[in-house]
């Protein structure tokens, strides 16, 4: 049985793409990666390291048009006889997977955090406050994997890359302008995140947060009010109405830990909270707590990590 894994290769291979191939490889079947665009063959063939047996690439599609990508995947599923289709639950998957679900009448599970148990897949629900087990009742199954739920596992070897005509059809969406990603690590994929809230008093005080993030190689995030008043860009807003993340380490400075904030971050493996108020609710959700002024503690932590990195 084949498993089709959709890969977005427009900006090279993201870690989440490698996670999706690794995940496919844990299921019972032959993993076929399907992608669109103009990525180099050598880049695509490296998906073999993570368990793909081959890559099908449709060079005629050069945008993120969800209709075209869904058409290509439908053609690939029919050509390979695949019964399972895997996505990484990112922005493109959120547009393509539901469309494909209707086109193939295949049950879709989004936000999967574990491998299927029979027909049932575990997902995050209630914005990270609970887990749900979703049963797919159709023979064809689509699983959209939450980033950072599985680490990529390499060890295979380069695989063949085949040109593929996926009958994409015409693009209905015209791209007028695009800004490429600025930061190095997209927040949902980041393993380490440094975040701050209203306790920082103003946007001019974020230097210390960015310095710490640079030292750690972390992404930066913030609480909702901070994004709402424009101290930080919207895409940094984490929580129930922002991005839900599950990094290995989440450092929160000057954030009270309101239930809506916790919802988006309590999937983090380790949480460090820095807050002047020892009664701040965030300490109840934290692994390590520091009662203190972020303006003193964060620079001190930065120095301590620099010292540690220099020594190791």
């Amino acid at each position, binding site marked *: 049985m084949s498993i089709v894994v959709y890969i977005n290769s427009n900006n090279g291979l993201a870690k989440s793409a490698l996670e999706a191939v690794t995940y496919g490889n844990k299921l019972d079947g032959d993993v076929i990666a399907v992608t669109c665009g103009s990525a180099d063959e050598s880049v695509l063939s490296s998906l073999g390291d993570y368990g793909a047996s081959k890559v099908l690439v449709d060079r005629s599609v050069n945008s*993120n048009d969800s209709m075209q990508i869904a058409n290509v995947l439908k053609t690939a599923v029919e050509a390979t006889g695949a019964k399972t289709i895997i996505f990484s639950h990112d922005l493109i998957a959120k547009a393509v997977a*539901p469309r494909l679900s*209707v086109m193939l009448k295949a049950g879709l599970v989004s936000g999967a955090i574990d491998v299927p148990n029979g027909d049932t897949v575990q997902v995050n629900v209630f914005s990270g406050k609970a887990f749900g087990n979703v049963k*797919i009742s159709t023979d064809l199954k689509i699983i959209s994997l939450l980033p950072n739920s599985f680490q990529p596992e390499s060890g295979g070897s380069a695989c063949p890359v085949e040109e593929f005509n996926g009958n994409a059809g015409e693009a209905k969406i015209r791209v007028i302008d695009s800004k490429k990603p600025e*930061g190095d690590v997209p927040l949902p994929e980041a393993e380490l995140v440094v975040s701050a809230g209203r306790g920082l008093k103003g946007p001019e005080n974020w230097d210390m947060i960015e310095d710490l993030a640079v030292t750690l190689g972390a992404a930066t995030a913030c609480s909702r009010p901070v994004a709402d008043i424009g101290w930080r860009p919207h895409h940094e807003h984490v929580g129930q109405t922002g991005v839900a993340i599950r990094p290995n380490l989440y450092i929160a400075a000057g954030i009270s830990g309101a239930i809506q904030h916790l919802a988006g971050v309590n999937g983090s493996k380790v949480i460090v909270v820095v807050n002047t108020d020892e009664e701040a609710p965030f300490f109840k959700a934290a692994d390590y707590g520091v009662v203190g002024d972020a303006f003193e503690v964060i620079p001190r932590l930065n120095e301590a990590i620099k010292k540690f990195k220099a020594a190791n």
Partner: protein
Amino acid sequence: MKILVCISKSPDTTSKIAFTDGDSKFDENGVQYIVNPYDEWYALVRALEIKEANGGSVTIVTVGTATDDTVIRKALAIGADEAVRIDSEPTDAYFVAMQIAEYAKSNAFDMVLTGKETINYNGSQVGGMIAAGMDLPFISLASKLEVNGSTAKLETETIGGLEVVEVDLPAVISCAKGMAEQRIPNMRGIMAARTKPLNVVAPVPFESLTSFESYALPDIKSACKMIDPNNMDELVELLHQEAKVI
């Protein structure tokens, strides 16, 4: 401009999340339902702004039972002209989307707007499925939407970046942060909502493709270890040795 806005209910964000019936059902005991924030703050408010600028109408639609009428009235209080409730339990995203697609197909809307996702199931599925059911283009996670005649210009989040796109209407659009500012309903809106039309229509037969079998709550964290604010070396050591995250 005829705009359809899809509305879902979701538990108030401060609700205690618990499950009953052998962890197979969400425990609604004491739970207050609100209009899903993404549907209300972004999709509905942007639809109203477009109507205010260009004329036309805003209809809200939900798939639900009579108990959802209070949530529908909350959405009407923000300013929609009328509401449609497709009278059925919303069993899964596919079922819900097919109901809305069938309704929308026979009513010639220029745009169908949804929120980015619901805050309870976080599926981000319904919008894309409606678009597929209607064979229309779908723009997901738009943070800006301008209408110019029969085309829409949108900004969408890409992974860390931004894309500006154009599409001919009709189209289906899911709305994310940045689209609009939350509106607090005023007394007049709340009064008017009581008498606005709420049409109940019968569902079309469709099966569900998925079902939630059971739920679980995360393990409770063990007590937080407190670190002396003057001793960040200790914290670094713990993050390295004990937590093994750096």
